[in-house]
């Protein structure tokens, strides 16, 4: 046993250069992760973090530069080689087989393991230890984003990695779950394993990480010790200028308000055995108001979004009214025509067609009465003009004038998806997880845009698992759990603890035995 405290470098990347055509994604980047260290990789969208991590995991080959693993030069030609070294990765975009069970997905990612009782046992041990609740028999297609991520994390941990790379791991976790994950990661680090932690939540980075590498525009900006920095100083390093955090002003009261969205006693059966049935959901949203719906993944948010958007209509009881008009049974197109706009949870494959260009993808959310699709014809010129409006208004960065949706980074794609809806000037916007996996600057831009939309008189419903976000932008907060929605209460009148309690226990404002009757 070596007891020396001198840090032992586990992996050293040096002078890494990666070009895509004329675009240089990594320009002489260096990264050193020591054994037993939790290292943060920070940077805006497009800063080159994903490229660097893909090189480390063998998914991309660098054009120049060297990689040392435990002091020896290595080549990592493919992910198999990375795994053989002891690198495990949890991606931001999940790579799961929708039609297989959780257990089968675990086995598929682990060469030599079968979906048997032994694997189930090992997974259950990890799941219990790290507070990552999972039903091994559940089919992946029925799981929410948060639950899917748990599979990826457990799969990575099952490989007992020397280096665990996590890309935006906490974005779909509750504060409690995230805290549990941090404990896990700290345990891993104490055991001598290293963690490379990619996050935009600077508080988390400061709480968890003992070293940070900061990238901007494909170049290395700084190595820093996050514990000695403030969130503000870290953010300034990332974006190259000071970031102003967006906060919702207390809204002026007493204005005459119009109810835009009115949900009364909405009920819908569960879409499948693992889903959640909506029960007696009621909510009123006025013009100019932002309502946040908080809650842990799998609380019925996905089902509520589906009921509001009408993309998969299962509503059995109750009504949804948009500006007084009953739209309970209306199609998503009819709802758009009536002035509603929707931003779903999945950016690729739901909000956009991965292989279609951004201008073509505008068609997905355009109501049929809009000019771009007169008489069923695609007006490509009109679409391109519209796209350039979205791109310039929301600072969407990608290669080329009209790239395919899958070519954009998560944050840029989300800015595009939200910008596409806001430029339609909707009367109602329903957004599911607006800033999941989006960097600090883009997050602020998106939140600002949502607030401006509300200022302009639209009603905005934000479904979010990010409590910071909920408290930053909402006028009123409701909590979704087990298919029920609590009463929306003014942000000033609730604390984070109140909301956290509602999210986890669902005890509504009562004392003693007076729980709400099911």
């Amino acid at each position, binding site marked *: 046993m070596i007891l020396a405290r001198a840090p032992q470098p586990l992996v050293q990347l040096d002078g890494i250069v990666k070009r895509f055509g004329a675009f240089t994604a990594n320009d002489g980047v260096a990264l050193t992760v020591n054994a037993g260290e939790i290292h943060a990789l920070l940077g805006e969208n497009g800063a080159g973090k994903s490229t660097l991590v893909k090189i480390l995991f063998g*998914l991309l080959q660098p054009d120049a530069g060297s990689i040392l693993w435990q002091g020896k030069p290595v080549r990592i030609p493919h992910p198999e080689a990375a795994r053989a070294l002891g690198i495990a990765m949890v991606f931001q975009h999940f790579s799961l087989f929708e039609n297989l069970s959780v257990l089968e997905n675990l086995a598929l990612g682990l*060469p*030599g393991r079968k979906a048997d009782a032994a694997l189930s046992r090992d997974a259950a041990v990890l799941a219990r230890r790290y507070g990552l609740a999972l039903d091994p028999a559940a089919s992946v297609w029925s799981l929410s984003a948060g639950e899917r991520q748990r599979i990826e994390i457990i799969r990575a941990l099952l490989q007992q990695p020397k280096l665990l790379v996590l890309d935006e791991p906490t974005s779909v976790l509750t504060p409690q779950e995230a805290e549990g994950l941090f404990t896990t990661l700290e345990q891993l680090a104490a055991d001598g394993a290293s963690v490379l932690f990619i996050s935009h939540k600077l508080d988390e980075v400061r709480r968890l990480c003992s070293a940070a590498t900061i990238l901007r525009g494909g170049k290395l900006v700084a190595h820093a010790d996050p514990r000695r920095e403030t969130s503000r100083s870290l953010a300034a390093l990332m974006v190259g200028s000071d970031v102003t955090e967006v906060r919702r002003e207390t809204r002026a009261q007493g204005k005459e308000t119009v109810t835009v969205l009115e949900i009364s006693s909405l009920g819908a059966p569960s879409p499948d055995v693992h889903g959640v049935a909506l029960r007696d959901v009621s909510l009123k949203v006025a013009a100019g108001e932002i309502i946040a719906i908080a809650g842990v993944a799998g609380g019925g948010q996905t089902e509520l979004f589906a009921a509001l958007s009408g993309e998969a209509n299962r509503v059995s009881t109750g009504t949804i009214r948009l500006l007084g008009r009953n739209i309970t049974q209306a*199609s998503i197109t009819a709802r758009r025509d009536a002035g509603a706009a*929707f931003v*779903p949870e999945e950016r690729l494959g739901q909000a956009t*067609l991965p292989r279609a260009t951004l201008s073509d993808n505008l*068609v997905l959310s355009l109501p049929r009465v809009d000019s771009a*699709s007169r008489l069923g014809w695609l007006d490509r010129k009109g679409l391109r003009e519209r796209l350039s409006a979205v791109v310039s208004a929301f600072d969407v960065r990608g290669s080329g004038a009209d790239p395919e949706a899958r070519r954009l980074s998560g944050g840029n794609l989300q800015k595009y998806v939200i910008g596409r809806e806001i430029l339609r000037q909707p009367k109602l916007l329903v957004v599911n997880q607006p800033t999941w996996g989006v960097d600090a600057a883009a997050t602020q831009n998106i939140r600002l845009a949502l607030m401006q939309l509300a200022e302009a008189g639209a009603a905005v419903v934000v479904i979010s698992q990010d409590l910071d976000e909920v408290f930053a932008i909402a006028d009123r907060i409701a909590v979704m759990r087990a298919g029920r929605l609590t009463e929306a209460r003014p942000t000033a009148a609730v604390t984070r603890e109140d909301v956290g309690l509602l999210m986890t226990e669902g005890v509504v404002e009562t004392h003693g035995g007076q729980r709400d009757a099911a």
Partner: protein
Amino acid sequence: MRLDLLPRDDVSRLREWLTPVVAFGVALIIGGVIVWLMGRSPVRAFQVYVTEPLSQGWAVQEILLKATPLMLIGIGLAFCYRADRWNIGAEGQFVIGGLCGGGVAVLTHGSGAWWVLPLMLMAGIAGGMLWAAIPASLRNRLGVSEILTSLMLVYMAQLLLDYMVRGPWRDPKAFNFPQSVMFDPAATLPPLLAGGRVHWGLVFALVAALAAWIVLNRTLLGFGIRALGEAPRSARFGGFNERRITLVVFLMSGGLAGLAGVAEVAGQIGQLQPSISPGYGFTAIIVAFLGRLSAPGIVLASLVMAMILIGAENAQIALKLPLDLARVFQGVLLFCLLGGEALTRHRVVLGRG
């Protein structure tokens, strides 16, 4: 040891278009080896299969004639396959189209009216649409796999045609041969050039190809078809009705196959027989993929495939090679195409374990 297929991040357009060309080349080499193993000269076979059909006037005409149904059916199938709907039963829709259109000719035999031919074409299209609507509706309403139902309906269509030409529609003067009366001139598709064999069906096919290109690339419907095939959730998010698109692509596919069927009996055969297709409906599946499900590609692919079919007939005479060899070659070609497609989108990595 194990082979892994890892998805490629970037596939250039050139590479995508080269794939079918390379696949065709590989299939030619494999075919050559088979011919060589059968004791014939592969070079001579190449001449018979490829060079001769392209260098002789009559053979070029035969190629266009055979390419016509392949083009029409392949164009229709592209709609289905783009929407991720697996219509395997174009052969049946072709037969029903021929049966319905031919039925009009049989029932109006002797009238010679101007409306007979248009009515035949419409009946053929309607018949093919009806036959294709069955698997589409079964899928939409009951969730039955359209692969199975569309394929099973092929055999029903063939038996129905067989029954009609042996029974109700048999020509009483045909010495008990199972065939209908020869169609009137008014019930026959005229040749494009006087004295030639290529008929108006080719024009229909080219018009269909142009229309398909426009629909798939320039209309909302085409975008919906693409969305449904690529990411069904985004199709739902975009407000496209999944069932309606399923029905529409089947109707288009069936209608075009039906048109091909009636054009075949009215342009080429001139009567109904127990068999009116040497498997055009199945061959067109290969054509659709060889043409990368794009209209211009399918036009080209149908010509290539027709050339192989003509070559196979020549090879029977010139090299005494069995006609089945052409089918083997078709199979090899499809295999190479799908394999090439997989290798274009993925790279092979040797793995352990």
